């Protein structure tokens, strides 16, 4: 970017080149810029844009990977809405989003509030709490989770001390989804760091003034902190819900690739994967993928619309 801006100024001063040469120079530099960007552009076209367009086309076809795709119009979408397993996957995903997102953000905010205060070893704590976010998406953590929440494993034994006996969460269709929720909450590091940055932006004099007026900690949090960090909160809600809609790896690994038992962890992407790669119904899978895109876009739109009611930007206040 700087390259393009600077170009016409400097050569003109130094060499007082003719306007024609300047234009040619600029074109040259643009060319250089595009050439530098071309690996990325090629990658984007070949690996992102191309497949997306192809999948949009496949969404309207019956395609088993071997015989050429056959145009079926909206058939995939109508079968999809009538498919009980698809309905189940939507239900499971919504349950996951609605339970996991708020809990994760609540914990992230809570820990951010604690870590925002100045104390010794602050950096160490921050790193420690952020760590799970770095490794959380890995397959190995999925295996660890499976081991933790199985029958007679540490979680089960701890529960039994308190007189709760469910015999492990992994095999129980009523509980297994909550083990995934727990895994999501455990990775609260990323939103926490963003909350921390938000908390740093809140002007101290507001708290001082409120304190002088006799506001207690709860009141200060409710009337100063929360409104002041509401843009950050909005950002986190948006990002985390979008993430939650796309949950896959943990469900796939924890359920030993079957998204079960009894379809209890059949999250949307898991069903999509099964349809596409196990049953070779690529058309159906593409239709599912595009429906997810539309659904996430709708949720995003609703969140953007709602922000007028609860997100406070300083510029707006002025």
């Amino acid at each position, binding site marked *: 970017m700087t390259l393009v801006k*600077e170009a016409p100024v400097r050569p003109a001063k130094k060499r007082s080149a003719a306007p024609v040469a300047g234009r040619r120079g600029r074109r040259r530099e643009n060319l250089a810029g595009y050439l530098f960007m*071309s690996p990325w552009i090629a990658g984007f076209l070949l690996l992102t844009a191309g497949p997306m367009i192809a999948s949009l086309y496949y969404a309207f076809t019956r395609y088993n990977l071997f015989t050429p795709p056959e145009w079926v119009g909206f058939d995939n979408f109508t079968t999809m809405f009538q498919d009980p397993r698809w309905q189940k996957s939507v239900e499971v995903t919504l349950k996951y989003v609605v339970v996991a997102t708020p809990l994760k953000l609540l914990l992230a905010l809570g820990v951010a509030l604690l870590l925002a205060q100045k104390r010794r070893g602050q950096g160490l704590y921050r790193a420690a709490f952020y760590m799970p976010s770095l490794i959380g998406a890995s397959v190995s953590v999925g295996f660890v989770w499976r081991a933790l929440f199985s029958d007679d494993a540490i979680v089960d034994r701890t529960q039994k001390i308190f007189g709760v006996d469910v015999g492990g969460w*992994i095999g*129980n269709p009523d509980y297994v989804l909550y083990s995934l929720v727990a895994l999501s909450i455990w990775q609260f590091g990323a939103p926490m760091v963003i909350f921390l940055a938000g908390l740093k932006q809140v002007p101290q004099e507001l708290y001082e003034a409120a304190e002088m007026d006799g506001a207690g900690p709860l009141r200060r949090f409710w009337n100063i902190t929360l409104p002041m960090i509401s843009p950050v909160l909005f950002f986190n809600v948006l990002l985390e819900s979008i993430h939650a809609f796309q949950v896959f790896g943990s469900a796939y690994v924890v359920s030993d690739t079957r998204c079960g*038992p009894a379809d209890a962890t059949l999250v949307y992407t898991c069903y999509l994967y099964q349809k596409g790669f196990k049953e070779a119904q690529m058309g159906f899978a593409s239709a599912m993928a595009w429906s997810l895109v539309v659904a996430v876009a709708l949720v995003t739109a609703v969140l953007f619309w709602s922000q007028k009611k609860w997100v406070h930007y300083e510029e707006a206040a002025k």
Partner: protein
Amino acid sequence: MGTSRNVERRTILKAAGATAATLGLAATTGCGGDSDSSADGTVTLRYAWWGGEPRTIAIKKTIALFEKKYPKIKIKPEFTDYEAFWEKFQTQASGGNPPDVFQNAVGFLRKYDKRGVLLDLKTQADAGNLSLDNFRNGVLANGQVDGKQIGIPVGANTMALVIDLKAFKKAGVEAKFGWTWDEYFEALQTIQDKLKIAGDTGYFAIMYLYDLYLRQNGKAFFTDSDLGFTEDDLTQWWTDGYKRVKSGLVADPKKIEQVKPKSGLSAGLAASEFTWDNFSIRYEGEGESDYGLAPIPTTDGKDTGQYLGSLMLSAFAGTKHPKEAAQFISFMVHDPEVGKIMGYDRGILATTEQYDAFKPADANNKGVAAYENEVAKAGVLGKITPHPSGADVIEAAFLRLGGEVAQGKSKPADAAKALFSEAKAAFAG
């Protein structure tokens, strides 16, 4: 960044070079993976299989043996577990890039034959590159579809009841040939009463066992192109199954789920489990008890409905080296040394050369051999029919829906209805 002309030109050139390199790289990887012959006439074949670590170690030894004998053919191994294998294979095959030679099973023959992926090895046999002689008990027929030979069996296996010998002995029950289902469930009851453990790990979600039960009653799971039973049949099968979970005769599915990938039997959750007889070898390593093979219960006291199934080797129809692929398969199924190395890992060795060469030394392999000989002697072996295209999807659905019934999450009638509707979609796919 410098703006002088010289630097600029160099920058442009460098950028262009980098781009060309990247695109070039993409192009190479794009069409990579083809097996090819090198200048000195050496041919490379890709060989893929699924299975655990012991199988992989053994197969690698047999590859080394082959490469020594055929120095002009190099074998590139690819292996994963069962689930991953077929997912990967499907993608590779649809891209026209499957392995030259690969392990195959009866549930996939029609599916990939229909899609033109499998080489008819009969032509190679006619050309003298592959021998179709000396196969035991007619297992060669397992690899035939519509007159084509698209799979060559490496081993033969059949369903069995693997039992915890100690538990059966302690409970004082005996598994005898020709026993009926009623007698089997009575035995489970005795085990439960005396040992306070479940008798079975969940028989009613195993498609291949239900197939045997249907065969005992004059039906079969699959016809050439459809399901060979009714929704009512299945509803009854699952209703009985669920009743037995509730009464504790069959192990708690919640617990079975959590010991995976270990089996419920070797984890000590139940005293018996229906599975393929060659799987029994793995239980000894996994579990703490001693395990043996017992006969399949019958309906009429005689017919078990059993047949000999097999794992096979198939070749890709589009392979650039059909001759070498056929030579490789022939070596793998006939060479006595290979038989000695593989043992009964993929079932009882399919050819007489290999069968005679391998003398089972441990109780487990001996047990498998004795069991299969007994089954063959009883003269009740039926014929296997290659499953229709979509059978693999239906097997997965059967396991899943059976699991839902066991967990009390689906009513047997609803689950049976779901299976039929999913089967319809699978056959159409």
